[in-house]
């Protein structure tokens, strides 16, 4: 079998970039996107500038994948934004941006990916949630709501796509030091880590480990699951 074609959203920086580099090293053909230009390169990597919630831009990515590779094996819906604020201080614009990126973006990529994956009766989709959902974190209402929606999508799409040979799962990381949580005060992060059974920050490799499990060919009987890190 030729090398897998893997699409990852939000690859300019953070977890998405790390995961993209990991799969490039493994020899996958990796396609990534983010709103900004990427400042890293790899012979196996192609970057698209696209907002994940922009249907026209997203369709362009998929039509390029279809023309160049004719198939898609793996989709990782990593692109995401957070809003860390008391709800009374959260403008509706922020809520809309969070929902569009995290929910609409994930939906769009799942939908378009399934159209391509169904051709080969094989596909692996991994969505990104967070432990903030089960921990019901205060100060993250919009973010938690958006990720709860991502889990809902994961559950329903797992059922809808099952007969197409596509699994849909989600990973829920604990705090990992990226720009996403840079603005959160240290005592808040410490308090959050303190609620985890295993009390440490997450590492990129913790996420990769779970993603590798979900996308493995042998995981064809695993779908509709959300796996939280740190024992949450």
């Amino acid at each position: 079998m030729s090398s897998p074609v893997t699409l990852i959203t939000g690859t300019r920086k953070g977890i998405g970039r790390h995961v993209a580099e990991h799969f490039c090293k493994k020899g996958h053909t990796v396609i990534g996107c983010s709103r900004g230009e990427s400042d890293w390169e790899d012979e196996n990597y192609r970057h698209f500038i696209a907002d994940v919630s922009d249907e026209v831009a997203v369709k362009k990515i998929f039509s390029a994948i279809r023309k160049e590779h004719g198939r898609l094996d793996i989709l990782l819906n990593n692109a995401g934004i957070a809003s860390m604020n008391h709800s009374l201080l959260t403008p509706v614009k922020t809520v809309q941006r969070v929902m569009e990126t995290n929910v609409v973006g994930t939906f769009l990529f799942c939908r378009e990916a399934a159209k391509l994956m169904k051709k080969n009766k094989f596909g692996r989709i991994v969505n990104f949630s967070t432990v903030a959902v089960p921990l019901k974190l205060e100060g993250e209402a919009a973010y938690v709501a958006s990720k709860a929606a991502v889990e809902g999508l994961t559950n329903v799409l797992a059922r809808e796509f099952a007969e197409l040979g596509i699994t849909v799962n989600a990973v829920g990381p604990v705090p990992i030091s990226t720009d996403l949580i840079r603005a959160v005060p240290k005592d808040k992060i410490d308090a959050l880590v303190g609620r985890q059974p295993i009390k440490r920050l997450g590492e990129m490799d913790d996420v990769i480990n779970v993603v590798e499990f979900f996308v493995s060919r042998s995981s064809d009987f695993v779908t509709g699951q959300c796996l939280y890190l740190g024992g949450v």
Partner: protein
Amino acid sequence: MQDKILELIIRTARELGEDELSLGGDLDADTRLFGADGVLDSMGLVTLIVAVEQAIEDELDESVALADEKALSQARSPYRTVSTMAEYAADQLQGG
């Protein structure tokens, strides 16, 4: 335009063939696709719609959504026959 799309739908359905669409026999413009006496089940309809969207994109270089809310809620479904589907697709292309 409509004729071109009609031809494209029939070709696409033939390419998908027996395995993917579970079509009983060959089809023409008047073949009942979906609904009473339709040859497709709902998954077959989805498969055909997606394949036709992709074929339109490949051959006409236009992006079209054949499965929007309007189509699904129309009393007289545009997916009744091959020719109503072609008519609907042509409308979508001209309108959008």
